[in-house]
């Protein structure tokens, strides 16, 4: 069961999505923006509101890479794994990130500061290898730039 505060926040989110056609993704984005992840105890609240089963909500949450069931680190570093970035050294860059952070894809550093996520293209394919730190884009990321980014993120 969700606590009173969570329930109240959820009522606000659900009310503001009442007029949308097909509101579930916008609702989930709003929930994640609020809590940093999709807490398990809001699933039933969403299901009741949308008149669908808990399993259906769960199915949607787990289908999409963006939605997480636990909080991420303080900063999320995404590194592009796709072909155009591979053509200019993207794989070596992610290998370096694994080494520096001591985690693999989807891992969070021991100090809780950085979560590393793969991304398949950021639309920066003419200035790869590309990365994104908390929604901020970075192009032509070489070893030096990566080290700086990770240090700034507190890795």
């Amino acid at each position, binding site marked *: 069961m969700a606590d009173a505060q969570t329930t109240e926040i959820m009522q606000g989110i659900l009310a503001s999505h009442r007029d*949308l*056609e*097909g*509101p*579930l*993704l*916008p*609702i*989930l*984005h709003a929930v994640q923006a609020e809590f940093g992840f999709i807490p398990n105890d809001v699933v039933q609240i969403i299901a009741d509101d*949308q008149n669908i089963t808990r399993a259906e909500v769960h*199915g*949607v949450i787990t*289908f*999409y*890479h*963006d*939605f997480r069931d636990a909080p991420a680190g303080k900063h999320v570093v995404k590194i592009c794994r*796709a*072909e*155009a*970035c*591979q*053509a*200019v050294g993207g794989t070596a860059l992610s290998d370096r990130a694994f080494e520096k952070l001591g985690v693999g894809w989807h891992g969070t550093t021991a100090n809780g500061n950085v979560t590393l996520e793969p*991304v*398949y*293209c*950021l*639309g*920066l*394919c*003419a*200035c*790869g290898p*590309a990365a*994104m730190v908390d*929604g901020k*884009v*970075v*192009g*032509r990321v070489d070893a030096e730039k990566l080290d700086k980014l990770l240090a700034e993120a507190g890795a």
Partner: protein
Amino acid sequence: MKIFVPLDSAAKALGADDVANAITAEAAVRGLDVKVVRNGTRGMIWLEPLVEVETAEGRIGYGAMDASDVPALLDGKLPSLGLVEQLDWMKGQTRLTFQRCGVIDPLSLADYEAHGGLAGLRRAIGMDAADIVAEVTTSGLRGRGGAGFPTGIKWNTVLGADGPQKYIVCNADEGDSGTFADRMIMEGDPFTLIEGMVIAGLAVEATKGYVYLRSEYPDAIDILEKAVVLARQAGVLGADVLGSGRAFDMEIRVGAGAYVCGEETSLLNSLEGKRGVVRAKPPLPALEGFLGRPTVVNNVISLATVPVILEKGAQHYADFGLGRSKGTIPIQIAGNVKFGGLYETAFGMPLRELVDTVAGGTLTGAPVKAVQVGGPLGAYMPRDKFDTPFGYEEFDGQGGLIGHAGLVVFDDSADMLGMARFAMEFCAVESCGKCTPCRIGAVRGVETIDRIGQGDGGAIELLEDLCETMKDGSLCALGGFTPYPVLSALHNFPDDFAAKKQAAE
């Protein structure tokens, strides 16, 4: 003095915000009257941040700029590139869809109108729905998302369909590696897309539109959302579009990181708030699309090209191109290239010219080994296929596809077995899981390629067989086209597969 500093993500990723801030700060210190305009990008990404200074002769370019160059810029001592419009890259193009991108302030509707914007919509308002559809059909415009289906025919089906509500859905889930045309136009000239959607609405009698925009593009989301608000305030969107008495409004919906949602039926499911699994066709989305109602699903570039077709006339557009590939195509040049960016040109330019001349060969200077055309589901083209002209049928004839028109160039250090493996791995990660050939086939594909990599040459036949099954048995292009990169790598670069075999023996 007016100074333009792009706000495009690629420019930002290379430091454009720092440059813009430095210009504002330095101008303030010097007491100069400088107006910094944040424009879109011209598409010359290797020159970003490309700063332009307005002069009586035209806009003079400086790039790639660093914030530390700003004092010299304001002293007039920084070496320039000359007039931006006169650069070879710009002069060689036919910019129709991207005519305003990089030129105007993307969020100024006045700027937009001053450069030809809304002329197409005004013309469309005076036309019957069927005549708008006929105009688009005559232009020869085909789906720029990759499938290449004639846009006018699709619209006609929706126009003829009955329903309590029809929709225009813009597919802005541009997930293909090597493509960024959708992002560039949404950030650099968002009103073009909005105008295209309104025209589509008038043409098929739809009053509601959605843009399904991928979450990996936060800057594009931000700009397009602002543009929609401005368009609504100006009466371009709303209950009475430009005083025509007809209604059209739209919303931006953000995806959630699933590549397969670029497929139109899974996009519709996602938009409805479901898992983004593919739907079997028929029924066509044109008849039973969003919420089961008649829906036009078009790619960003298709819709963003509609205004210029209405503005200049269908024939003007159709006069460009090659064979059944009419008009222009914004080609995105990416990967290991000297000059990466967006180059809009009439269909028909041979791949060789695009790679060797326009892109200037590789960034590393090493020979070009392969070019993947059309995203992660496109074929790897070897040098001996470089004479292929850029067109839908022409690439199809070479066992490839143009997809969303991205080129990803690799130099001779590329390991094609590794690229084939990646294609299967990507398919396994992104498969929606609905059909077996894709869901299981991709996993088996990775294993089979690993066996080849470990020297099991006999597994090659198995891989070919698996690819046949995926091609014939998958519901959508993800499973159905993953064999393109895999088989083209295998067939065009057999040494990369055989070498491993010898090494292991």
